[in-house]
């Protein structure tokens, strides 16, 4: 080795050695950043676990509190019922007896007042003394739901924070691993000679600069937690969403639902103004828009409803594009696309949702059937519905009865607002399937020769002994009716056949027909082949003053799963 080469080699080694020393410094910096990120991630994970525990604790505690309030409310109602009874007897009797009934009523009233003082649900704002009405839903939202939503959202935020710092820590760990390789290459360049050492040193240097770039980019990423006020507003908006869902599912005032949707939308707008990237708020806003859109559409305002739903679809599309792969997002998107009439897109979204949620094949299959029907594919639509019903029979879920009801309710209204040929058949098939699965444990109705020859609502006239002397036809029953009677003429009946009566109600000014569970009945035929029966639609305890509320009612009678007859009457 000549002197020049020796000097060059020495200079090379010195440079690499100094470079390695510098690398040690960089490595220690990355270790420090890694440790910091890892500590923050661990603390966030711990907080997430603690908030999860507190969420469950809150739910348990709130359930006990709610149970105590419910007991109190029932006792209050019971005393109120006894007071009404005393008042009725007081009015029916006179003199000494009436005075004693008055004393009893007053006594019960005092006890009831003492009881009311002890509760929360028996006092404003959860009790309206004028209407003697409890706002149990508001109590539930204030005492259980909103605090639970705050805790759960706080837990989710901490979980996301933990994942954020965890990902940073992993990036630093990877950088350190790559740096170890770089150190190896640089060290190797010190012990070998020839031009290959430059290659080693060059490769090592490239890795070092890559590591420094990645570490710097990772360090530049910062975590921004949503403001505490944003979490509170989000939780309240979640409560509004829950209220809207309950209003829609109970078929109540859609205008009120739209108001709550507006309130929730305004709250979320405030949240997004402060925290524009707050994912939970973005997703909830999509939900609010969807619900407001559905509310408007079911209310008959299809054009404005579709505008909201189109905004929601766009929001969902962006969330999915941003990498949020949530099967329920695909589900929400598919039903929203169905409302917009984007049938091909809806089918694609249903397929995505179905792939991720195979257990929900009934509800998604029914939606697919509807979309196919709207697309004009009648045969495929019917096949999809049959497949989904068969799935519901073979893989029953606790949600099935509610899914059947919700789908039928919404489809009936949807078919009024945007009629589609064939939808009425789908609805009938779904109704018969719900009865067949529940009563016959079969997907299809039984083939039967039985039929309902006639169904006529009547208003019996009684003599002084309580005997019926006349049964004139009646389409509208007076207010406070406890029993709506009807004549039913059955033919071709066989012993043991199931007869299911379902009653749907539509309150004045409402758009949905809502199944009234307490009015429905199931029995098995034990009578002759043909018969003319006097039946009635009534609450389980009409003697206890349970009347039929004002509105329209629809009676449906199923024989062995066949929807044999349907009739409508009114209570004024």
């Amino acid at each position, binding site marked *: 080795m000549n002197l020049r080469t020796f000097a060059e080699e020495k200079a090379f*080694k*010195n440079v690499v*050695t*100094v470079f*390695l*020393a*510098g690398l*040690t*410094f960089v*490595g*220690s*910096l990355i*270790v*420090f950043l890694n*440790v*910091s990120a890892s*500590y923050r991630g*661990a*603390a966030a994970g*711990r907080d997430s*676990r*603690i908030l999860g*525990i*507190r969420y*469950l*604790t809150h739910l*348990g*505690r709130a*359930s*006990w*509190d709610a*149970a*105590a309030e419910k*007991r*109190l409310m029932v*006792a209050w109602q019971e*005393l109120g019922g006894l007071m009404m009874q005393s008042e009725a007897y007081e009015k029916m009797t006179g003199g*000494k007896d009436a*005075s*004693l009934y008055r*004393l009893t009523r007053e*006594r*019960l009233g*005092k*006890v009831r007042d*003492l*009881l009311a003082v*002890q509760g929360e649900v028996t006092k404003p704002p959860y009790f309206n003394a004028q209407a003697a009405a409890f706002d149990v839903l508001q109590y539930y939202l204030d005492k259980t739901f909103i605090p639970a939503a705050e805790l759960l959202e706080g837990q989710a935020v901490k979980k996301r924070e933990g994942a954020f710092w965890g990902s940073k820590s992993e990036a630093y760990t990877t950088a350190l691993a790559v740096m170890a390789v770089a150190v190896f290459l640089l060290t190797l360049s010190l012990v070998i000679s020839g031009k290959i050492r430059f290659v080693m040193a060059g490769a090592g240097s490239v890795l070092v600069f890559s590591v420094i770039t990645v570490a710097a980019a990772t360090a530049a990423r910062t975590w921004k937690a949503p403001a505490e006020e944003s979490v509170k507003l989000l939780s309240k908006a979640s409560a509004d969403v829950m209220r809207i869902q309950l209003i829609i599912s109970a078929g109540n005032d859609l205008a009120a639902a739209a108001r709550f949707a507006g309130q929730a939308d305004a709250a979320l707008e405030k949240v997004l103004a402060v925290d524009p990237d707050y994912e939970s708020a973005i997703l909830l806003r999509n939900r609010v828009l969807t619900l407001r859109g559905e509310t408007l559409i079911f209310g008959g305002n299809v054009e404005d409803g579709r505008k909201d739903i189109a905004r929601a679809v766009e929001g969902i599309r962006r969330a999915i594009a941003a990498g949020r792969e949530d099967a329920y997002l695909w589900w929400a998107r598919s039903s929203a696309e169905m409302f917009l009439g984007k049938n091909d897109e809806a089918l694609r979204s249903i397929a995505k949702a179905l792939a991720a949620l195979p257990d929900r094949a009934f509800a998604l299959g029914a939606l697919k059937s509807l979309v196919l029907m709207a697309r004009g594919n009648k045969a495929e639509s019917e096949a999809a519905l049959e497949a989904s019903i068969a799935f519901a029979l073979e893989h029953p879920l606790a949600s099935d009865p509610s899914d059947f009801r919700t789908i039928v309710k919404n489809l009936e209204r949807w078919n009024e607002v945007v009629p589609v040929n064939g939808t009425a058949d789908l609805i009938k098939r779904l109704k018969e399937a719900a009865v067949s699965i529940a009563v016959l444990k079969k997907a299809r109705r039984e083939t039967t020769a039985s039929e309902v020859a006639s169904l006529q609502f009547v208003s019996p006239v009684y003599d002084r002994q309580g005997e019926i002397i006349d049964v004139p036809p009646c389409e509208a029953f007076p207010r406070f009716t406890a029993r709506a009677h009807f004549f039913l003429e059955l033919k071709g009946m066989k012993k043991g056949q199931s007869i299911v009566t379902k009653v749907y109600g539509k309150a004045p000014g409402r758009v949905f027909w809502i199944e009234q569970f307490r009015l429905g009945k199931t029995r098995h035929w034990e009578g002759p082949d043909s018969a003319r029966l006097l039946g009635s639609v009534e609450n389980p305890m009409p003697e206890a003053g349970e009347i039929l509320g004002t509105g329209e009612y629809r009676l449906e009678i199923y024989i062995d799963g066949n929807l044999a007859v349907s009739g409508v009457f009114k209570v004024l």
Partner: protein
Amino acid sequence: MAEIDKQQSLKTLLSIFIALTAVTGALISWRASRVGGAASGADGKAVTAALEEAATELGIASETFSNLTDTREFLVHMENARAIHEEYMRNPDVPGHWLDEWQSESIRARARHTQLNTDYVKTQEGRPTFERERFRDTVRALAASEKALDIEPFLKTSEERRRDARLLFSLNTLFTAAIFLFTVAMKTDVRRKTIWTAAGVVLYFAATVIAVVKILR
């Protein structure tokens, strides 16, 4: 010749400093990881305390439900019994079967009364109220005397340990900076090598003193 000896002595000194700095850095890192481990331990204790608190609170909630409903039902039957009896004694028009009702209500009230946790029933104007807040506070205090329910002290400990560990790890950057300065002084022809060496020594001692103070405190 003397210059070469001087150079050699400096190199030896620098080598010793590099080795010393590396070993000290490793020791501090080991200590930092121990401190970080203590933080994780405090985290675990915080989670355990949260679970203990949950169990206590749920026990209190179920007991409160039971006591509240017993007290309220007792109140209803007792008030009914009292009012019926008063009216019976006062009003000669009251029929005899009211006495039966009085007895029935009294029996119902008595059955509830046997269930009451009277330590926490406050009676005002002869009417009982279950003191749910006092019940909760005292049951919680009793549970807290037996096991840790409050997570805050553990969170505080965890935070302090993590701060200490981060500081100790950050000192490593000073040690590695010192190593860098020593290496430059040893391996390059940089002028004023003693200044580079002195800067490294200052960094080394500064980091060591801070670490020792932090560890001993």
